[in-house]
Structure formats: C-alpha cells, structure tokens
C-alpha cells in the first residue's frame, strides 16, 4: 500500500538554515546538510529545501548545499526558490536534487514547466502554488506572496497538470505561519480537481493538522516546517501519531 509522506521543509538563506532545530549534539545548527541528514535519519520521507536567498550574487550557494546534501541523504530531495529557467532546473538536478519546485516562473512563463517536464520527466517537476482566499475563490500569488496574479488557483492547478507537473505543492497564504492548520477547503478542492498528487503546506501547528491534511484534504503528502524545526515534534512522533489515526505511513 502506498504510504502518505511527511516532508520537513527547511528554509535556506545564503546557504544557512533559517529557524533551524537546536539539537544538543549538532555541531552547526545552521548547516542545512546536517539538518537534512537528521531528518532523513529520523524517518522523513522526503526533504524539501526552500531557497529564500534574496540577492542574486549569493544564488549559487544553494547548488553547493544541494551537492553536499545529496551525498549524505538517500531519500528524495526537493529544491525550490528562485527557479527561473530550464537551465536552473538542470543545474539543480545535476547537483543531486531529485525534484525541483517552480513557483513564480510557472505563473509568468508556463513554458518552463512544459519544457522541463518533457526534458527531465514530470516526476521531477513540482509546481508550487501560493494561494490566498478572496471571497469564495482562491487566487495565485507570486514573488513569495507579494504579488497577486489574480489567477484562479483551481483553474491554475488543472493547467499545471496539463503542462506536465508531476505534483502540486499547495500553500495557503492565509494559514502560512499561523499554526492554525492547513486550509483544508483549498487542499481538498485542488486535490479533487486534478489527478496528480498534492502536497499540503502552510499552517501546521500540531499533529492533528497533519491528519486533517490527509484525511480531509486528501493530500498525498504533508509538508511542515516550524513544528519540526523548533523540536515541538520529531518526524517519528508525527508518524506514530498518524499511524494511530489509521493513516498509512512508512514506519
């Protein structure tokens, strides 16, 4: 039976983890390579890096981070943030990323999604959708949530599936950072309108939120950042909890 996945996400800025876990025996809490290794040893089903480096001159640091991580972690690694072109995707894959997530560029130039999925296979192309509720619909935001594209998130999700995305990473802008739980309505609506797997993201504050994302939101995978970073829960605890609620997980 296929298991639901738990994916810890690390925000990486200038090659350093922002908001990292403070493990006692960790030599360098800001080192993404060490943090990723801890997660994969702890049973994470995949690891996600979100590069939030603002300045262009420090962009190349992420390649080095990915290279080092892929030599130590033998679970799938997804890398996103600042991906602008097919060449950027090629570079990340060559450094050892298994999947690349595309956000703003997918909205501005969907050809990057179709071209890259044709070139590298849709299995490595994840389209990240940042959505915010506006009355009875959700709109897609770009540039780290700063710009409203006005595009309907459900239509967009279907369009990205047609363009060759292998998975959709759906983040609720309303919930992100609130620890109030996923926007289940959004996740469930997108999940039922496409035939590709959905990764739920944005707003996890406790383990019941992960359960809801899968049971109610019908997500194939659940992504969380802060509950793991701050050591509130370990990946193992999260999996045991999901298991106790009858959700199939890899233990």
């Amino acid at each position, binding site marked *: *039976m*296929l*298991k639901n996945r738990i994916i810890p996400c690390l925000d990486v800025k200038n090659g350093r983890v922002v908001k990292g876990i403070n493990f006692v025996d960790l030599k360098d809490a800001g080192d993404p390579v060490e943090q990723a290794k801890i997660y994969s040893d702890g049973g994470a089903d995949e690891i996600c890096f979100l590069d939030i480096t603002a300045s262009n001159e420090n962009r190349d640091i992420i390649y080095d981070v990915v290279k080092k991580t*892929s030599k130590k972690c*033998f679970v799938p690694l997804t890398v996103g943030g600042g991906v602008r072109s097919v060449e950027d995707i090629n570079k990340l894959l060559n450094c050892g990323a*298994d999947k690349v997530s595309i956000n703003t560029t997918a909205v501005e130039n969907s050809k990057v999604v179709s071209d890259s999925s044709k070139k590298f296979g849709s*299995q490595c192309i994840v389209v990240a959708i940042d959505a915010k509720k506006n009355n009875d619909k959700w709109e897609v935001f770009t540039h780290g949530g700063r710009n409203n594209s006005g595009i309907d998130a459900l239509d967009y999700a279907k369009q990205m599936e047609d363009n060759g995305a*292998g998975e959709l990473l759906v983040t609720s802008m309303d919930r992100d950072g609130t620890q109030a739980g996923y926007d289940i309505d959004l996740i469930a609506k997108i999940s039922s309108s496409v035939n590709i*797997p959905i990764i739920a993201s944005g707003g996890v504050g406790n383990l019941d939120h992960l359960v809801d994302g899968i049971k109610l939101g019908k997500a194939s995978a659940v992504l969380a950042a802060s509950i793991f970073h701050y050591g509130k829960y370990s990946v193992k605890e999260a999996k045991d909890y999901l298991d106790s609620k009858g959700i199939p997980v890899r233990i």
Partner: protein
Amino acid sequence: MKITIVDYNSGNISSVINSFKEVAQDKVNIEVTSDLNKIKSSDKVVLPGQGSFKSCVDALNKINGLSDTLNEFAIINKKPLFGICVGLQMFADIGYEETETKGLGWISGKVSKIDNQNGKFKLPHIGWNQINIVKESKIFKDIKNNSHMYFVHSYEFIPGDKNVISATTDYSSNIVCSVEKENIFGTQFHPEKSDKLGLKILENFIKI
C-alpha cells in the same frame, strides 16, 4: 572490480552515482560513462533511466553502438546488469509511453500506463510503497518482505513470463516492481532514494 553507470543523457542520474559511490566506498571503482570500451571492460553495468520510455530509448540509440554493446554485455557475455526505473522498463520488447517504441527486448513483455481506475488513483505513483518479494533474488539478500521502497512512475512493466518477477507492489493493481532473469536485474522503484534498505540492494548487486 569496476562498475559502470551508463551515462546516456537519460535525465538526472546524480542520485544513482552518489548512492553507488556511498556503498562502494573505495573497494569498487565506479565509472560514469557512455564509452563503449569502458562498458565492455566493466564487471557490472548499471542502466539508469528517467523521463519517458521513448526519451530514454531515443537517448540510448543516439549513442552509436551503445545498445549493441549493452546487448553483448548482458545477453551474450551474461555479465550482471542492473536497470533502474525506465532502465528496467527498457528491458521490454515494447513501450507505449508517448508513442509505441521498441525496447531492448531482453525480457519479453510490454510497458503500459498504470490503470488508475478512472482517476481513483493518482498518477504518477509517487512515494513509499511496500514490496512483496515473490521469489528469491540475489539483490534482496537481507531485505525483508514488505520493506518500503521509493517509487515514481506512471508506467509499468508487464513481462510475458511471470517467472522473471521477483517482487510486486500494490497500487491500483498489482504492479511488477522487480525482475531477475539470469544475470539481468531491475527495479521499478529507486533503490538510490530508498534510504538504508535501498542502499543495501545496491550493495547486494555489487557483491553478486
């Protein structure tokens, strides 16, 4: 010992390289190349493959003499070869992804799209699934039945002769996920991304 990972522009193979290097340490020489002479002089060959069946077969055929060299290595000289994902699928006679495409024809059978039962099951089949080991295979030494492995695919290999099947996995239907035919091995899942158990499979292959 020398193991060659065939680099024929079949998509992203860095994870395959990293995992073999991790397992091999300094005891085994891992080459990544499409050089025909280097392949011929190898003890073992790994055939990775990502993307579509057609794109992988096309990429393989673009390199002059490569498919003949692999055929000589695996079929005539019967040296151990390991196909991963589309690398395994290419063992088939024919594949139906994008368009009908001829495979290597090493293990009779076809590669077709997984039946998602009218959208009831999501495709690609992505994530960790358990393998049912149905026959003893050298690559499954010390691997327990029902172990989890990492999958990413929308197409499945359906061999004509069921005796080659060494493991299956349950999704929308029972999917063949590992084959062994004499010296030829293949997994639909990605051992290079399946954590410690996956690395164990690679180690088993190295030790054959």
